[in-house]
């Protein structure tokens, strides 16, 4: 794997995406704690860097499939914050008209094709998106996100095999946050590194610090270029940590305190901000301006979500099939 050095503009773009994800997450949790919103919410706080660094390498034409912990992936790929918030609030103006919620976010015009609530199921679908691109002779790539727990389900193995046999333009991104729901990595996974499983399918397996934007960018660029040139799939294991448990309300008693404290101390977000300033990729004023602009964007998103109407009851009859059911 080569190390690529993104230019300052790209680095700042990664920061902008991380900020959007972090601020949105903080605000959603705040709204839930204040009782303004209620939902099954799987926070990706701590994992911002992974989709931010990948998505600066993608276009709207590229496809993305993700899982219930996927708000960060969707925001980075371009799901507008307003439509996200309205969907989380279960409003008619949400991206899915309030019919999907946090586990089924979809926004095809930015390539956000499917969010699944079923562990492992993003990967077979990604193979199909890749197959469509391959048959049509397009240069699109598909990003399939999933967690470390999903690498133990059959769909992972079937998908890597199928993608390898058919040389599909799919990048399998395992966001290894080290806990499968409440079960620690080593209790459920036979290998030291999930990326080692790529060997079984004769495809590259890249193990990378997912909280390091440059390492993540480099791995993603390597895999995306391979996929775009028709050489086939790559498995990326991006090491990370989730700060807010499996689901909001999970107190994380199963995580050793020292492990949690160390992970929070290594929070990639403030670390990256400091690095950008130290290396003079951006000025404090630049970053402050981004923070403020995003705060305004989230303010607007929240206001839009709160002021939007709920879906009409007739909607349960619509979108079951192409026609409205009786």
């Amino acid at each position: 794997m080569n190390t690529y050095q993104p230019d300052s503009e790209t680095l700042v773009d990664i920061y902008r995406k991380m900020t959007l994800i972090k601020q949105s997450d903080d605000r959603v949790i705040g709204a839930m704690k204040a009782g303004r919103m209620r939902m099954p919410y799987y926070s990706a706080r701590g994992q911002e860097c992974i989709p931010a660094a990948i998505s600066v390498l993608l276009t709207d034409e590229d496809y993305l499939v993700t899982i219930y912990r996927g708000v960060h992936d969707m925001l980075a790929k371009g799901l507008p914050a307003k439509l996200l918030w309205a969907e989380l609030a279960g409003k008619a103006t949400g991206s899915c008209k309030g019919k999907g919620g946090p586990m089924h976010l979809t926004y095809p015009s930015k390539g956000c094709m499917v969010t699944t609530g079923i562990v492992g199921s993003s990967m077979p679908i990604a193979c199909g998106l890749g197959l469509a691109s391959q048959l049509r002779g397009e240069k699109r790539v598909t990003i399939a996100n999933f967690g470390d727990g999903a690498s133990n389900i059959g769909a992972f193995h079937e998908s890597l095999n199928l993608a390898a046999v058919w040389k599909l333009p799919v990048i399998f991104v395992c966001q290894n946050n080290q806990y499968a729901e409440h079960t620690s990595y080593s209790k459920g996974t036979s290998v030291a590194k999930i990326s080692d499983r790529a060997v079984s399918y004769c495809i590259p397996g890249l193990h990378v610090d997912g909280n390091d934007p440059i390492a993540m960018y480099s791995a993603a660029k390597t895999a995306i270029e391979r996929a775009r040139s028709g050489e086939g799939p790559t498995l990326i294991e991006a090491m990370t940590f989730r700060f807010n448990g499996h689901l909001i309300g999970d107190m994380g008693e199963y995580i050793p305190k020292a492990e949690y404290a160390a992970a929070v101390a290594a929070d990639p977000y403030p670390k990256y901000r400091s690095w950008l300033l130290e290396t003079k990729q951006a000025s404090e004023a630049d970053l402050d301006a981004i923070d403020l602009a995003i705060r305004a964007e989230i303010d607007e998103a929240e206001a839009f979500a709160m002021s939007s109407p709920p879906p009409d009851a007739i909607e349960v009859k619509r979108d079951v099939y192409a026609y409205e059911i009786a």
Partner: protein
Amino acid sequence: MSTETKAPANINLIQALNWALHDAMEADENVIVFGEEVADPEGGGVVKISSGLSTKYGSRVRSTPISEMGFMGAAVGAAVVGMKPVVEIMLMNFVAVCMDQITNHAAKLRFMSGGQTHVPMVIRTMTGSGIQNGGQHSDFLEAWFCHTPGIKVVMPSNPVDGYGLLRSAIDDPDPVLFVEHLKSYFAPGIAPERGSKIPLGKARIHKAGTDVTVIGYSRSMLDIPPVAAKLQAEGISCEVIDLRTVSPLDMETILTSVKKTGRVVVVHEAVKSFGVGAEISARIHEALFKELKAPVQRVASNDSPVPYAPPLEAAFLYSHADIEAAIRRTLA
């Protein structure tokens, strides 16, 4: 099997479905076919329904690894971006290993995305008892899918319907489970007119009658007509309905017939309990309770796994005598 070939008067369901796939692939380049052994080097499908397709259409037709969850999900993904996959699950019991992709994804993505995506795919599969395939290669599991909003279930009984329904299933904007019956494959029938499509959700009056409505689909349409013919000789007039599409049910055709006859027998090979017959019976009772002259009767298979030994297989499946007895019960 080009379209220029002059159609013979009689063909079987295998040939009809092969024609439908050839014609659909010719008509729309988004139609793709995959499943285990479907390409010509692997045999063109276990009963050769996809014969000739890979030779003509190349990479649009692929034999897959034995990996139903993987390739079913691939069909979902391809369909979401406008391909029209026709995937083959070799035997219906194998849907159990890929149910997640069918029921959690194919059937629900349109709804969960608020209509932003939809899944225009067809799942072809075959099944049926009577050839000693035992408990994991013979089941009729259509009720599982009829109980899943978002997917349609089509079950043809003859070559004309098979051709026309498969063409419509491929055109349909929503996922369709297309269930074929092993014994029906080889029964000769009138050849379909190529290009002639049959709308989904419309039953067919196989034989008009006045005394008892007998409703079947798939395999039971091989068994009902001889019983109806026998009773006709006694002056008992059966109206025989072939549902063709099991979900959504064509209640208009069913209720119109029942208003006339006041008596109903439903016949299917699937096991009896919690099945399609129960749903049809319930709907008829809800709509026409006061017009019924007898309780709706169900004729179906024994509530057990499909057995292996021929005498047990025979005891598992309903008999012609069971159909006859059920019809007579409605007249008692």
